[in-house]
């Protein structure tokens, strides 16, 4: 299988502050890759290096088969980036933004106008097309931003925290857009702080911590890696009383309950919890220590 993104031994520091300490990753073509990490983990730096905006200090980085240092222009032709902060021209209208970017992407002015109309409709912006972006809400800007990155078809799409700060409706529109792009065979590399987002969208989830990838796998694999199912006991006021790992078998559950029932009131409620992406995130980014009751 072709790799849309290959990163090997990537290092980057600013001054004496080391941001990326040997990142290795591969993203197969046509898949969605979500990079999770706390603030300051180096997500944005990594995406900026992948999209040629920042030069790596060491390591090889290839995007769409091209080297991001030696073949910048070829990389740029193959990618689109939607940055963490919306990259739209506030002074222009939504339509003018799209037409301008279309022209810069090499469309004729007629094709650019057609494409703009199409995208405005698709991203629910037709009514605001002739208004200046300055007057747009955060969600509208974000949708325009994504529309701009889809003006021409790029094999590799980078999205840096695409839904940060969006309301539920705008987030839905974006998620649907991303799913659709993936279905059409685009490779999508996104960073996010929302675990649900990674869970929903990504084929592969990776966790970046202190400039290194500390875990990679499908959402399910990561959950399994973090910890097993667990039995939770809550009292009548729904406060957590006890949490015990379990392998889910009757024998194990009977053992746990037999042990606990003498220690807690009879109205204590019992539930079996599967690990969530939050658990994965917190475990992997907090270090090795994990409290299990």
């Amino acid at each position, binding site marked *: 299988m072709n790799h849309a993104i290959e990163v090997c031994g990537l290092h980057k520091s600013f001054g004496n502050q080391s941001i990326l300490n040997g990142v290795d990753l591969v993203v197969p073509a046509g898949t969605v890759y979500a990079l999770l990490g706390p603030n300051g983990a180096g997500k944005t730096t990594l995406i900026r290096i992948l999209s040629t*905006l920042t030069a790596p200090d060491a390591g090889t980085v290839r995007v769409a088969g091209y080297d991001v240092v030696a073949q910048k222009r070829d990389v740029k032709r193959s990618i689109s980036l939607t*940055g963490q902060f*919306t*990259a739209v021209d506030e002074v*222009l209208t939504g339509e003018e933004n799209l037409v301008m970017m279309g*022209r810069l*992407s090499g469309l004729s002015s007629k094709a650019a106008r057609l494409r703009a109309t199409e995208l405005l409709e698709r991203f629910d912006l037709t009514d605001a097309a002739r208004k200046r972006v300055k007057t747009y809400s955060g969600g509208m800007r974000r949708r325009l931003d994504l529309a701009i990155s*889809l003006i021409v*078809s790029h094999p590799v799409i980078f999205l840096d925290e695409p839904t940060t700060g969006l309301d539920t409706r705008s987030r839905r529109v974006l998620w649907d857009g991303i799913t659709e792009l993936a279905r*059409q065979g685009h490779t999508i590399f996104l960073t996010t702080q929302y675990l649900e987002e990674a869970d929903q969208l990504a084929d592969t989830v990776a966790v970046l911590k202190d400039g290194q990838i500390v875990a990679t796998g499908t959402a399910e694999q990561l959950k399994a890696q973090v910890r097993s199912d667990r039995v939770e006991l809550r009292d009548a006021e729904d406060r957590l009383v006890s949490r015990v790992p379990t392998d889910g078998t009757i024998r194990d559950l009977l053992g746990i309950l037999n042990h606990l029932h003498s220690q807690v009131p009879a109205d204590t409620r019992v539930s079996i919890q599967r690990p969530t992406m939050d658990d994965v995130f917190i475990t992997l980014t907090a270090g090795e220590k994990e409290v299990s009751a």
Partner: protein
Amino acid sequence: MREAQFSVQPASSWTTNWVFIGRGIRHSLRDVDAMVMAIALPVMLMLLFTYVFGGALDPTGNYVDYVVPGIILLCAGFGASGTAVKVAEDISNGVIERFRTMPIQSLGVITGHVAASLVRNLVATAIVIGVALLVGFRPSVGLGAWLGAAGVIVLFILAITWLFAAIGLVAGSASAASGYGFILLFLPYLSSAFVPTRSMPQWLQGFATHQPITPAIETIRGLLTGLPIGTNAWWAVGWCLLLIVGAFVWCRVSFHQRSGQR
């Protein structure tokens, strides 16, 4: 839902620059402050120097003939200073990042602002000359002299705008850009724009006579009023070209530095 069916070549540098010039002009037109500045300032300065200061500076009443070139360049300075702010806004905004991830000459975004400044300032220049004619400016020179003066004015606008663009690039923020730009706006007062440099104290004369604005003003004044120009034209053109090339290189270097380091 249709996907982009267009598989296209990146835009040519001609298209890129053209699109960015259009953007710059749109930005100018929608910036109400800048437009008011570009139109009202020339009118006010012209009236101020003719009716308020003019009588004292030249009791014969011909001060308007003397001051027109100075006001043109002063207005060009003010008009161009907006470029520093625009460039600083752009560079601190995400939109420049998008341009930089596209396979285009992204420096064109600066060229676009410079071109818009040129257009804005030529309008301001026309207003200065229009008002000057109304208040008694009577140049009696041929078309060639007018064209020559226009050429020097264009060169000067380009030089000072590229300088302001570079200031906008290194300033870090829009307000810092307009602060640093103020120094450039002060230069016309230390030239022969409003009074002959020989009326200044000795220590200032050297600077005032040889700084780039003085030969530009003397050339335009000479062309429009038929006075001898001497070597001023060469100095004016030389200075402007030097500044254009220097500021352009400065812009290029800092554009790539600035945007590479976030």
